């Protein structure tokens, strides 16, 4: 895509010159390259060796030849052990070796750059000590898609004012005395932004799913859930008591087959007809970087009279030419999606979740939701942050901050993905999704990539089993509108170096090329 916008004046929030609007046509091109045979082989071998060593070390620990490093339970006799030792085999012998890659404490705003607190370990990750220094790194790990994580500026001023005028907490449930005028304002603004009749907000995104799915479906209902759905959706489905069936990720043919088969056969054993059928999908899947196929889903749902629950945790604000999520991206009618859910943690840099839809739906949730009845309502300063961001995003003026950020993110996504793919990395996911997973396969490479990038001043997130399938460990880059082109170039150069070190650039579809040859 050519840089067709003229160089703009020095605005503090936009990358000078590199800022183009999102293409108008949504694309269906998702490419998932097959795992190279050699990678699969070495990865399995890797696990076998880890297991052998793990077994051997456990033997030594049991025989007291080696010290038990983890904290031990001082079990009075007769008590059943708190957790079984085989459950922790993986933790002790695989996870512990690479524990320094996770739970890294930070000491600054999680913006485009990050200050990590430097940690050292004397005993191979069993315990950590802080040196007191901070390491400045480029942040590709935080969910800060639109770059609103800031500690200064107009939004921060609004938040500080709201702490002064409304305090930090209302200390009461929303149904009792916890509803403030700000909450009502947030809800109406949210409904306006999304284009629905009404909306309702909660204090925690995870709890929004877990506590509200049971109010919508119960015993005698069927839930068809995508393979890769988030834990909160799975927990909510389980708590509801409905029958849950899983379909292959994004496989609409499998979904249709399940729909047909289950409507025909009815409830298990009694064969009574189902009370309701709910299809649960996510907008953007955070481990794969893939998008849900919304037009096809809506068609299916209409054909079979099912209901659609769309979890836009990662896609609200980040996808779509107006930042209104996947519904906007695919140019679908927002009224076709029965339940729109999302979180404020990612693009809005706040905390909490919301559900939007028709007024009857929201009224029902107000009455029956676990969160509205028992849990404390959202904290006022956090509400203020979301209101300020929403005001910016609703503003359709192309010159203003909201649109600038949306366009910036789109450009960053396109640029980064193209160059990374051309360099030979095996990249998964949809070409327009700001979540960019590049495959590493083996657990050792996961640790190595993470550490090597940290040495070069880049903070990334690498994940392996059990968050991903066994052989498909990956590094997941989270792009943000606060990344400048220079930062992205630096990251790409470092990724090239480390990719060569770890022999990662093995794509057959895009044979590896050096960085300077991949200019757009």
């Amino acid at each position, binding site marked *: 895509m050519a840089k067709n916008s003229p160089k703009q004046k020095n605005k503090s929030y936009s990358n000078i010159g590199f800022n183009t609007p999102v293409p108008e046509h949504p694309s269906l091109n998702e490419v998932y390259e097959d795992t190279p045979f050699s990678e699969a082989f070495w990865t399995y071998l890797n696990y076998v060796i880890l297991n052998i060593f793990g077994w051997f070390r456990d033997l030594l620990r049991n025989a007291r030849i080696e010290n038990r490093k983890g*904290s031990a339970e001082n079990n009075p006799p007769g008590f059943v052990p708190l957790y079984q030792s085989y459950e922790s085999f993986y933790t002790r012998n695989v996870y512990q070796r690479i524990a320094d890659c996770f739970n890294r404490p930070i000491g600054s705003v999680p913006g485009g750059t990050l200050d990590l607190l430097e940690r050292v370990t004397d005993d191979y990750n069993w315990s950590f000590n802080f040196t007191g220094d901070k390491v400045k790194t480029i942040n590709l790990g935080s969910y800060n898609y639109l770059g609103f994580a800031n500690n200064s500026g107009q939004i921060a001023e609004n938040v500080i004012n709201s702490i002064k005028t409304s305090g930090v907490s209302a200390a009461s449930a929303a149904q009792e005395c916890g509803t403030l005028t700000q909450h009502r304002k947030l809800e109406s603004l949210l409904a306006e932004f999304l284009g629905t009749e009404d909306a309702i907000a909660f204090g925690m995104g995870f709890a929004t799913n877990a506590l509200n799915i049971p109010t919508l479906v119960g015993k005698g209902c069927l839930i068809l859930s995508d393979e890769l759905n988030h834990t909160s959706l799975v927990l909510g489905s389980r708590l509801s008591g409905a029958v849950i069936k899983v379909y292959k990720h994004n496989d609409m043919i499998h979904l249709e087959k399940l729909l047909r088969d289950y409507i025909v056969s009815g409830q298990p054993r009694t064969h009574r007809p189902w009370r309701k059928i709910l299809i649960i999908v996510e907008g953007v899947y955070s481990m794969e970087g893939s998008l849900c196929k919304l037009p096809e889903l809506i068609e299916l749902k209409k054909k079979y009279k099912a209901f659609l629950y769309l979890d836009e945790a990662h896609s609200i604000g980040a996808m779509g030419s107006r930042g209104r999520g996947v519904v906007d991206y695919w140019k679908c009618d927002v009224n076709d999606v029965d*339940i729109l859910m999302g979180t404020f943690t990612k693009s809005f840099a706040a905390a909490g979740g919301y559900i939007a839809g028709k007024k*009857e739906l929201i009224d029902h949730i107000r009455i029956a939701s676990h969160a509205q009845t028992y849990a404390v309502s959202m904290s006022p300063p956090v509400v203020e942050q979301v209101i300020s961001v929403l005001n910016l995003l609703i503003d359709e003026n192309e010159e203003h901050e909201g649109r600038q950020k949306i366009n910036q993110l789109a450009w960053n996504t396109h640029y980064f993905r193209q160059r990374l793919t051309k360099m030979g990395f095996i990249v998964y996911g949809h070409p327009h999704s700001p979540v960019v997973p590049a495959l590493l396969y083996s657990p050792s490479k996961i640790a190595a990539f993470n550490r090597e990038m940290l040495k070069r001043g880049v903070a990334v997130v690498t994940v392996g089993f059990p968050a991903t399938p066994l052989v498909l460990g990956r590094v997941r880059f989270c792009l943000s509108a606060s990344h400048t082109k220079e930062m992205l170039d630096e990251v790409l150069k470092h990724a090239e170096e480390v990719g060569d070190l770890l022999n990662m650039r093995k794509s057959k579809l895009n044979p590896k090329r050096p960085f300077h040859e991949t200019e757009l």
Partner: protein
Amino acid sequence: MGSSMARGDIENLATDFFGLFESFKHAPFYHIIIEVSLLLAVVWLLFFRKPRPIEKKLTEKEKQELIDEWQPEPLVPPVDSNHPALNVRVLDGIVGKTVEIDGRKSLNFATFNFLNFVGNQRIADKAIQAVQKYGVGSCGPRGFYGTIDIHLELEERLAKFFSCEEGIIYSYGFSTIASIIPAYSKRNDILFVDEGVHYAIQKGVEASRSHVKWFRHNDINDLERLLAEQDVLDKKNPKKARTIRRFLIIEGLYVNYGDICPLPRMVELKYKYKYRIFIDESVSFGTIGQTGRGITEYYEYSIGSIGGFAVGSSFVVDHQRLSAQGYCFSASLPPLLAAAAIEALNIMEEDHTLLFETIMAKSKRLHKKLLSIKGYIINGDEISALKHLRLTNSLNTVGRLEEIVQFAQSRDITITVARYLTDEHHLPEPSIRLILNVEMTDEELEFLCTVLQEALVKVTA
């Protein structure tokens, strides 16, 4: 001729039969067995087997018909627009000792603001500083750059405050206990749970899929009975018993009842029957005990921020860092809330005993005053700052209680009916939940009692 033919036939027949018998005599034994069994099988098939209907598979056309016929229920049931949840009071400004509703100020006896930390200047200042340093959101779960140094500080302070080895914080009070229980208790384990625990604990218990044994609220004898029954089962199958974990789940101060659990006796039973205790101190933390350390100190929601935490030995707490769903898969607590919590802890530690002595004393005085109003039943321990108010017997309906609440609001006192969902395991009786704020003066407490008295007269007239 016919008869001679017939005689010939009969003779032949007789010879045949005789030959048959002869051959039977000479046949090997197994041959006879097989023949007899086959005969019996034929007899059974003909006379005794029920005819099995052969189910034909549905044709595509039939399937399509079923699909076309199927109609779902509406997504949500019809909603009563008069339901109290759709007509809540909307508040303005700081929800502290007084609240502002539609421009009018009233005394607040409804929110969980025991130590009056909501609106506290010091806490607000610290929260502002946190925003200026870290922004608002943490933009990530704890595992991926969501761990901010202020979280680590808060966890250390909490552990120190309770003299435990380690602490862990969650971003939402409800999911704290709802994630902790399933992290430890799995399908085969047994949970002994008090019937009066609040909804979040009930959900945690459900999510764990363990066997649950409910015992009557605060009834130690009922608990012992259940434990003894379990013991008998254990002795029958000791091998299995060694793999079943047992937990007792109680609250320090019950939100739904206002009374305190008999902890010493439960600890005794713990060592006798070998189970572990989980105490939910959401309400007792900061309100009972000489230095506010809750039920464990007394026997030997008040912090003004949002979130939840758990403290214990490192061995126990560490397990949650990988297995508690609400911790691993959720974004971490916004730094400003963590900063507010740390400052609240500071205040609690500085004040040492004054704050807590005051709140316990005031609770006792309020309890006496309330008891003197005839017509109300007061539930809750006398030192508890949380009390439940009910009308006598058949008068106690949600409708009447709502009238009392509205009357109080018109006299500038904000109280609330305790809200529950209908699918609670043991739905408590309707009640008004009264919460005492440590900064309330004696005159204000008197005023509350006067208004309650007048409300009673109006409602029972």
